[in-house]
């Protein structure tokens, strides 16, 4: 910002006589009218007495309104100021002080700021894409099971607020459900910390909570046509437990939210930017976790001598074809038709015994009927 010496004047002494030069010594607010002497140093004289001498090389410009040249000196008290309102004196003095503008911030520094922020951006992006997933993978096994269970209990509280915690507990249905879950659990090599329940909610869904809780909703059970379909879904959720995906996603989401929030600072409307970019990266991470849980389910069903295809069919029955409706890079799960295709590829004729007898399957379907 160059000071322009126009006719404008802000101080007293607007008359034709030379405008006074004002000196503030930085120790008091006293306004001292001074006379300048241009020697080998800048002499500042008040009433014929020298009160300060500034070497030209140490004189710097300070912020001032246009029409005033305000100077400071590196070797004088930090707040000592010399104010010159006379254009001729200002021009003469500016010519003497060769390093006047060396401390003006921003001068030539803009490129540096841009360079550093680009570097910071690149480093944050690299962190989000590679560092945080790695950290999540490495940290997850280190989180004690007890903490994870506590986390599960916390989210369990919210689940019962959101979905209503009506556990279906028809006795015969419970027995069938326990048998199915135990078969899957033992084959998967998970311990008895796994707890499962059917919740009486019409939403066709199932999910796993950190610390080993799996919930199946009545809505999904109602749409299922055989035990293998439900077994596949449960196997998928057990896969999440086995991989501790909840913990991993928690660490990952926390890390990326923080880093992306850091990146976009406080540009107005950055909320939308943060939301979009976060959805993009976390969705891709979550899709990977879902793929892995699917692989786990396929594997488990094969071990039991059953086909994973019914699971894909059940999901397809619930969601329909998704490709037309959603943007695939924003989806948290792989498209259902792709998952169905994958499971159909893994289809094989059953070689093991059915997981539930026809009678048990009927009781499981009726687990939410409170009578009997």
């Amino acid at each position: 910002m160059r000071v322009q010496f126009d006719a404008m004047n802000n101080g007293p002494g607007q008359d034709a006589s030379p405008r006074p030069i004002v000196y503030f010594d930085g120790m008091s607010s006293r306004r001292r009218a001074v006379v300048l002497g241009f020697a080998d140093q800048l002499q500042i004289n008040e009433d014929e007495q020298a009160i300060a001498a500034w070497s030209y090389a140490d004189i710097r410009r300070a912020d001032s309104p246009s029409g005033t040249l305000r100077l400071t000196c590196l070797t004088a008290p930090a707040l000592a100021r010399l104010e010159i309102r006379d254009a001729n004196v200002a021009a003469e003095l500016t010519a003497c002080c060769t390093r006047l503008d060396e401390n003006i911030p921003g001068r030539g520094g803009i490129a540096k700021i841009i360079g550093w922020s680009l570097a910071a951006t690149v480093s944050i992006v690299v962190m989000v894409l590679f560092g945080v997933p790695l950290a999540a993978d490495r940290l997850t096994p280190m989180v004690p099971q007890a903490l994870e269970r506590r986390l599960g209990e916390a989210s369990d509280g919210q689940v019962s607020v959101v979905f209503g915690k009506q556990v279906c507990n028809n006795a015969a249905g419970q027995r069938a459900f326990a048998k199915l879950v135990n078969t899957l659990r033992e084959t998967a090599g998970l311990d008895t910390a796994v707890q499962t329940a059917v919740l009486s909610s019409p939403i066709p869904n199932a999910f796993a909570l950190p610390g080993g809780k799996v919930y199946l909703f009545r809505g999904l059970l109602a749409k299922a046509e055989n035990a293998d379909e439900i077994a596949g879904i449960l196997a998928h959720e057990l896969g999440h437990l086995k991989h501790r995906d909840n913990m991993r996603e928690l660490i990952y989401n926390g890390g990326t939210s923080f880093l992306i929030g850091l990146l976009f600072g406080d540009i107005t409307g950055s909320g939308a930017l943060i939301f979009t970019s976060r959805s993009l990266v976390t969705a891709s991470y979550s899709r990977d976790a879902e793929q892995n849980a699917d692989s786990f389910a396929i594997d488990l069903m094969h071990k039991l001598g059953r086909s994973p295809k019914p699971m894909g069919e059940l999901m397809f029955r619930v969601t329909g074809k998704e490709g037309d409706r959603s943007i695939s890079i924003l989806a948290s799960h792989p498209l259902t038709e792709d998952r169905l295709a994958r499971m159909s590829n893994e289809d094989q004729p059953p070689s093991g015994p059915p997981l539930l007898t026809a009678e048990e399957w009927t009781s499981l379907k009726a687990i939410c009927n409170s009578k009997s």
Partner: protein
Amino acid sequence: MDQISLVPRHPPPLPLAFSGDRKEFFHLVVRGAGLELITVGFYRFWLATDIRRHLWSNTVIDGDAAEYTGRAKELLIGFLFALAIIVPVYLAYFVASLQAERIKAFASFPLLAFFYLFGQFAIYRARRYRLTRTVWRGVRFWMDGSGWSYAARAALWAVLVGLTLGLLLPWRDAALERYKMRHSYYGDLQGSFEGSGWEFFKRGWWLWLLAPFALYIFPLAPFVYGAFKAVEWRWWISGIRFGGVSLGSTMPRGALIGLYWKVIGWIVLLALAFVAYLALSAGLAASMSGMPLKQFFAPQVVSKNIPFLVFVGVGYLGFALAINVVLRLYLLRDVWVRVLASTSVHGIEAAANVSARGDLATALGEGIADGLDVAGF
């Protein structure tokens, strides 16, 4: 100075002047918005500093302009330090809320109170930073007092204001201003605040009654809010004292309403321009994809068209930055100018020979305020 002794016992009040050029400020914020975009927001420290330097150095009191001596690097360092504090606090908050959730679902909300306290602390410390960077006649302003003590007062008063549905707001403001001002100094002149809650209430009670209506009837809101801000400014300025120097304000109630309408007008215009731009880029993207328009605008096609999404993203950013420029121009610079124009200084001779005192404060408070997204004056 000699001339002071010639002046009668009660010198006329001195008006304050602003000598800044509006166009220069406009260029400053436009350039700043552009650089903020390029640097994904990191430029905000430099922009905030440049804005303050412009406003301070053009504020002329008794013939001498003030000066802002803060530098952007201090803000950046303050921000980094604040991060080092906020990150562990966030983690501790996370663990604490887990414990609380276990006892009762959603019981973690009271913990937000802690963040409120932290935010108030930051507001106090940020004010302290700005004040110690404010220099007039070679002497700086400064502040002591405790940020935590202030935060505790602010929080207790906030509870009372909440319980009385805002009726006690004037008394809260008066109490907090008294605390802030009696810990503010210009050199060895101690500040004080003489505005009372009752005075503020007398001037603004009818706005309090109108506020519920303003929430529902849109055209009323800018009038009510603008009048409230004007009443608040006038009351605040009139209460400020530094030793024998006192400020007075004659700001009329309607002084700021026009500015708020101008901002609304600009936002509407910008929104229209944004919509027109969206239509144009949709047309362009459709012709690029070679699909007939009708087919292109089916929701499942248009939401998957990458060039169109890129157009939308760029346009949105431009829109947001333009709004930023409008807000800074009208609600920062123009409000500043109008407040100064209605302010007068009495007894400035008491500041003619003040000794310099006080130390610089760090920008930590500014950093925390930036990290928590709180603002205060």
